[in-house]
């Protein structure tokens, strides 16, 4: 009997059409938990570093997390892993929604695709019956549209479907995988799916998921539930409204967007509009949002309502969450939120990442205004800001004309266009578009998070630590009160000592040593979430979340029957983190790649930044180049990884 996990992978060879249900080694859970952890292990074992994103050998893995399908609230994320066409590294965009649990109920922990299909197909998983079905009639259909068409065609209203739109079909590097109200967006999962000619995966599962020690499990759940009630009724004080609660930022609910619109940069991550949020804008945006949002909705087994059913003026309905309502409007310098809702609808059906795509479009507009792209490139493009963005989006997802160049993202497009375009690529890290934020003074925590994480996306790293120092001691004391989520009491003092100005402020405080501990803790919590399939909105991405290092071991132990304590859990996710790092070291990632954009902060401190990185690497057990040392790897039972890195000359023997 397997607990929490299903104990089977589904292996699909798209070249031959062979499908196998393969029992997994129970030891894998003990070593890597599940989700991202066991997926990294799979890629390490089976995809050598020579394999590129669009090679047939690139595996595309859809994974459940260890706790998906158990009664624990908000464990609903699917983790998709593959070598990215954009960054060239092993990446892991995730999606909430309903897919992962359904896959577990169908009896699988993962679906593993290898090779490419000669024709457009979709995979239909109905418990033990799995079919590769023709999808030629779905080619060109929208990503949302496809989901309903498949449910209808199968007469399975309860099937959950993950699909790509036109962008994925055309291997656009920012193509997403859309599913219900969620999407796995970053770094081109849709493009890899399209490259393999998989239009969609539909799953229906009606099997049981087992718990090893149900009474104990429900006892922990009781505490979690009480805490969710408490947090929903007691928002955190002295922080922005959207950060005060739990769940992903409640941007379908809250209409006050002063913070995003005035602190994030508009256009191609270019302009901060500090006086944007006037009473007039407030009234018009509130009206637009209340008119567009039909209902607030959740993902599987989650009491929050982070998403919404959106019915924009003059456009079909779709579902959305978080910051996407703003990204296109802000990138296009359009002050009308109705535009945001409308273009997001088209972008969702096309299946593109709403964080990186608007920046690519804004980048193109800047190049046009600078005379680097010409009227010839923009032939047929409307001259108004709104029309221009729709036109560019259409070109990109179809890879038509200049759209074909832009479809590879800002980094590659800039180099292909040349003629000075490289200077306009000012907001990418490891070739990936970042959130459009440009700030004043270098922040040591953000410096480390932006530079080093394999996700290459700050929202999957930050979360539990305040974004800036509280001005008054009273606010600090309030914040540190009732904070059981911390791994250690000493963290509280760091909040108390942290000043907005002066000696104990950024960039020198938190010090490199303290910054290392804080960042490592936040990253560890994300890694636990990603192995368990937990939504970071209910865990590592918010202040004082329901799940933390002290109750996770209890939940995992009761669910699986493994006796896991805090140290044991830390060791497992540390192992996963180092295996992932080693994988990407094999793909060429070193210290030289680990830096935020040059203009991310106005005031930079090169020596301090080097010290930060060195201190953090050392704390992690990595050498000067950011590569895990043999000692560290052996401590985590990853001696075989050290051997491999040494064999390839990435770790120099004896040098550590």
């Amino acid at each position, binding site marked *: 009997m397997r607990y929490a996990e299903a104990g089977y992978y589904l292996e699909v060879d798209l070249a031959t059409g062979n499908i196998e249900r393969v029992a997994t080694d129970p030891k894998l859970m003990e070593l890597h938990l599940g989700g991202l952890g066991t997926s990294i292990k799979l890629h390490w074992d089976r995809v050598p570093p020579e394999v590129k994103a669009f090679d047939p050998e690139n595996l595309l893995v859809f994974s459940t997390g260890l706790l998906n399908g158990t*009664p624990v609230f908000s464990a609903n994320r699917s983790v998709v892993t593959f070598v990215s066409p954009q960054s060239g590294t092993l990446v892991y965009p995730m999606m909430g929604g309903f897919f992962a649990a359904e896959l577990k109920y169908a009896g699988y922990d993962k679906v593993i695709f290898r090779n490419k299909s000669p024709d457009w197909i979709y995979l239909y998983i109905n418990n033990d019956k799995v079919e590769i079905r023709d999808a030629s009639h779905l080619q060109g259909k929208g990503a*949302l549209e496809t989901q309903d068409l498949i449910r209808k065609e199968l007469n399975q209203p309860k099937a959950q479907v993950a699909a790509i739109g036109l962008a994925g079909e055309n291997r656009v590097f920012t193509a997403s995988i859309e599913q219900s109200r969620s999407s796995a967006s970053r770094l081109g999962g849709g493009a890899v799916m399209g490259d393999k000619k998989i239009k969609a995966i539909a799953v229906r599962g*009606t*099997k049981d*998921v087992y718990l090893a020690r*149900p009474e104990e499990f429900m006892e922990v759940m009781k505490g979690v539930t009480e805490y969710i009630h408490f947090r929903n009724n007691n928002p955190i004080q002295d922080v922005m409204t959207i950060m005060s609660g739990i769940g992903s930022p409640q941007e379908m609910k809250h209409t006050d967007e002063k913070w995003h619109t005035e602190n994030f940069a508009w256009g191609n991550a270019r302009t901060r509009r500090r006086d944007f949020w006037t009473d007039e804008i407030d009234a018009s945006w509130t009206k637009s949002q209340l008119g567009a949002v039909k209902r607030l*909705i*959740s993902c*599987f087994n989650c*009491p929050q309502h982070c998403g919404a059913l959106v019915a924009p003026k003059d456009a079909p309905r779709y579902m959305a969450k978080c910051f996407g309502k703003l990204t296109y409007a802000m990138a296009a310098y359009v002050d009308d939120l109705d535009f945001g809702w409308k273009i997001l609808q088209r972008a969702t059906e096309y299946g593109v990442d709403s964080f990186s795509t608007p920046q690519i479009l804004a980048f193109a507009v800047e190049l046009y205004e600078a005379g680097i792209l010409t009227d010839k490139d923009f032939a047929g493009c409307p001259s108004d800001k709104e029309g221009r963005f729709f036109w560019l989006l259409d070109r990109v997802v179809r890879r038509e004309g200049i759209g074909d160049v832009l479809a590879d993202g800002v980094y590659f497009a800039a180099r292909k266009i040349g003629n000075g375009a490289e200077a306009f690529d000012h907001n990418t890290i490891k070739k990936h578009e970042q959130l459009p934020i440009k700030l004043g003074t270098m922040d040591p925590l953000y410096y480390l998070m932006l530079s080093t994480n394999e996700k290459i996306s700050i929202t999957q790293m930050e979360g539990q630590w305040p974004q800036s120092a509280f001005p008054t001691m009273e606010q600090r004391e309030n914040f540190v009160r009732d904070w059981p989520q911390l791994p250690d009491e000493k963290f509280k003092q760091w909040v108390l000592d942290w000043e907005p100005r002066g000696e104990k402020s950024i960039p020198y405080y938190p010090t490199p040593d303290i910054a290392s501990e804080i960042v490592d803790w936040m990253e560890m919590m994300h890694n636990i979430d990603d192995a368990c399939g937990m939504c970071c909105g209910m865990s590592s991405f918010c202040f004082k979340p329901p799940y933390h290092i002290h109750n996770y071991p209890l939940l995992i132990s009761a669910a699986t029957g493994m006796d896991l304590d805090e140290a044991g859990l830390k060791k497992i996710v540390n192992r996963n983190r180092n295996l992932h790092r080693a994988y990407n070291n094999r793909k060429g990632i070193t210290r030289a790649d680990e830096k935020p954009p040059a203009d991310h902060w106005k005031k930079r401190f090169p020596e301090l930044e080097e010290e930060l990185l060195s201190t953090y690497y050392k704390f992690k057990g990595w050498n000067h180049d950011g590569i895990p040392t043999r000692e560290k790897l052996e401590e985590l039972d990853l001696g075989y990884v050290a051997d491999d890195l040494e064999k390839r000359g990435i770790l120099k023997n004896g040098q550590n």
Partner: protein
Amino acid sequence: MAKIKKKIRTITVNADKCNGCRTCEIMCSAFHAVPPYSSNNPARSRIQIVTNRLEDIWLPVFAGEYTESECMGRNKYIMDGKEYSECDSCRASCPARDLFKEPDSGLPLKCDMCDGEDEPICVKWCLVDALIYEEREEEVDEEKPSVSEMEIGLESLMKKHGLQKLLDSVARLSEK
């Protein structure tokens, strides 16, 4: 006629508040697992969320009676501009669909209001208050089945199995 007290148990379903999370399905199936909570499987749940996301339909429906045959027609209802199939709100475990049947055996499922618990488990775990439980007592006349009602039953058994078989059964049962 003597008065007796009858417990009336009602779950008010506020479908407008449902966020479509399906926690009710998970918890219902977990509670009814043997031993309780040892497994869960929403397909075994006696409450199901009928969903049509883009149509803004999230409708919690409870398992009711088993029926041998499906309806002759499929009526549609349009309410507030949303189109519902008649089946959407039907509680029957019916041959027309998979809903409210054990997925492995196909045996019908029926909501038992979690008899013995303070409140039904689905209500307890619905954190968005889409399900509200009420219990009240009413005084009703004590009804005893009349002879004629019993005879209607006997007559149908006789028609189905024949008089002799029925007599044999009655004789055998009365010896016990």
